[in-house]
């Protein structure tokens, strides 16, 4: 028992350590150097050079372009998830929403619908799934972790009921553009979408009153309520947004794979949460930035791509992802503690 927080009863053990208010702010430059995003960028650059050393094929523009596929779809959801986590909730059902959206689109194809209608159906189903989560969490005040574990089973369960062990394919040719199309040279449609959604969520979180409300709710929902923020409505909108982003990711993924199985995107929820937390978003809510998540997505994409070039099997990569997740959160805590010990 050296100095764990529970030793002092005044600090509730659920909250993080009380922030220290400095006498004077550090200069913007030193703040930038010390920021999480900057550290992450440094890690990204190191990994980039390691990858260059690891394989001569890494720098090929077409290879790099292909490599973006393994994070763009997840990152689109991660931006929305970042806002949900900042508001103090979590949505574990995103991958199941992908499965349900994809199944509904596949079903619509069998009925003879064409691409524009497929997109509309996909987005509507995603929004409906998000609204269902939002209704249970924001409307009824239920804990989001349990609700979304439930809907995780339910949404994918519906996909299994519809599809069983079969698969949908035969998507129209024009549908292929979303996951396989190139806008210019090696720039894929998904990359463009990735950047656009990043900008959208950047503006939403950091430049609008809605974003400030989200942060306020994450820090103290009661205080937010008393300062006139419609807490339930903000949370409901966030869940719907996450549903819509999952639908967009589902459209891209389905278009890229060209078929739908009920097991599509299994386990993505964990990778997406990892991405968000790696991006410096506090899992307990209240803080986080979109640029952080943006860089984290690229770093995770490069790690998996680099390990892939070295013929490391996917399941071993998941060890790295798991270690990354824990160490990324543990490291700042360990550093802060040792710093406290030194200054004492």
């Amino acid at each position, binding site marked *: *028992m050296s100095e*764990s*927080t*529970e030793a002092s*009863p005044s600090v*509730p*053990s*659920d909250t*993080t350590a009380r922030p220290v208010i400095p006498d004077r702010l550090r200069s913007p430059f030193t703040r930038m150097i010390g920021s999480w995003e900057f550290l992450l960028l440094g890690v990204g650059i190191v990994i980039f050079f390691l990858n260059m050393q690891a394989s001569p094929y890494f720098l090929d523009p077409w290879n790099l372009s292909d490599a973006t596929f393994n994070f763009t779809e997840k990152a689109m959801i991660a931006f929305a998830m970042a806002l949900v986590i900042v508001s103090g909730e*979590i949505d574990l059902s995103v991958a199941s929403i992908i499965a349900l959206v994809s199944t509904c689109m596949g079903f619509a194809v069998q009925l003879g619908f064409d691409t524009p209608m497929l997109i509309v159906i996909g987005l509507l189903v995603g929004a409906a799934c998000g609204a269902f989560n939002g209704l*249970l969490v924001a409307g*009824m*005040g*239920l*804990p989001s*972790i*349990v*609700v979304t*574990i*439930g*809907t*995780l*089973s*339910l*949404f*994918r*369960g*519906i996909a*299994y*009921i519809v*599809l*069983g*062990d079969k698969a949908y394919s035969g998507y129209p040719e024009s549908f292929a553009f979303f996951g396989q199309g190139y806008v210019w040279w090696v720039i894929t449609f998904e990359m463009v979408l990735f950047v656009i959604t990043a900008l959208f969520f950047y503006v939403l979180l950091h430049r609008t009153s809605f974003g400030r409300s989200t942060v306020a709710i994450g820090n103290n929902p009661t205080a937010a309520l008393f300062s006139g923020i419609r807490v339930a409505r903000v949370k409901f909108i966030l869940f719907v947004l996450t549903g819509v982003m999952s639908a967009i990711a589902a459209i891209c993924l389905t278009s890229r794979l060209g078929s739908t199985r*009920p097991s599509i995107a299994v386990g993505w929820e*964990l990778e997406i*949460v*990892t991405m968000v*937390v790696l991006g410096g978003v506090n*899992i*307990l809510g209240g803080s986080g930035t979109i640029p952080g998540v943006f860089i984290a997505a690229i770093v995770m994409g490069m790690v998996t791509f680099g390990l892939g070039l070295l013929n490391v*099997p996917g*399941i*071993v*990569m*998941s*060890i790295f*992802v*798991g*270690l990354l*997740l*824990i160490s990324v*959160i*543990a490291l700042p*805590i*360990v550093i802060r503690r040792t710093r406290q010990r030194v200054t004492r």
Partner: protein
Amino acid sequence: MKSLKLSRDVVLAVALVLLVILVSLRFPGFASVDSLVGVFNDTSILIILALGQMAVILTRCIDLSMASNLALVGMCTAMLNASVPGIPIPFLVILAIILGALLGSINGLLVWKLDIPPIVVTLGTLTIFRGIIFLISDGQWVNAHEMSAGFKAVPRLELLGLPLLSWSALICIVALYLLFTRTAGGRALYAVGGNPDAAVYTGINVGRTRFNAFVLSGALSGLAGYLWVSRYAVAYVDIAGGFELDVVAACVIGGISIAGGLGSVAGAVLGALFLGVIKNALPVINISPFWQQAISGSAIIIAVIFNARSERRAGRIILKHAEQSS
């Protein structure tokens, strides 16, 4: 308060009985003693895991790594048995429990010493443990013919008409009931989840208690790991994949509050049995097993709505008492 908790378990028990009756209307053989004993035996592993998860959830934490822990320990015991068949089985079981407890203590230490949110820790160890299975097994399966006969026979061994698998679940139920209700350590779990700040004032080490809960859930996962591998006589990377959600579902259905401090052993067992009955009933009444996931998902959502209702009611009653006494 006590009568409320009791009624929650009773409601669940009634629902369970109704479910069994409903199934037996379509398929009369389902309600026979033999068949129900079979369902219990089938659900034994889920019951053991749900009891471990319950200890963790009581302290306001969650352990998503249980299924990976189970699979890793299962693979280790299977590989050990395949390479050194001479090791006596009781020793192997104890080894499995210790190994599981060690893996659980990793979660516990990270939560206790570094204050990392349990959901993050166990999401991380969930993938790490799975990955380690691949590393140690090289993606290979340990098949039935590689395991010794004794290894596979233990869960099927009959004692007083019940297989040993059921007995181990029964022993766990009794032991954990005593632990949760009759020991200081068990009451500490409730105290920490009910109000961590108040627990500190009563001299309970909150972090330490959470660590203990994770060690317990790890040890039970380890035991379940041996039971799983020996029962199904096969070990590979993906065994019990996604089972962690079933375990959480069993607890939620059993009325164990995710906010901590509320829940009973009977609830966890009934919650697990509820899922077990659904799983076993679907094939006999000719519903495709593909329905199972959606049904357990709906059950979780209904249960959490129901639990929230009764918890809120409890809150109001307390306030009324406070008003009257003041």
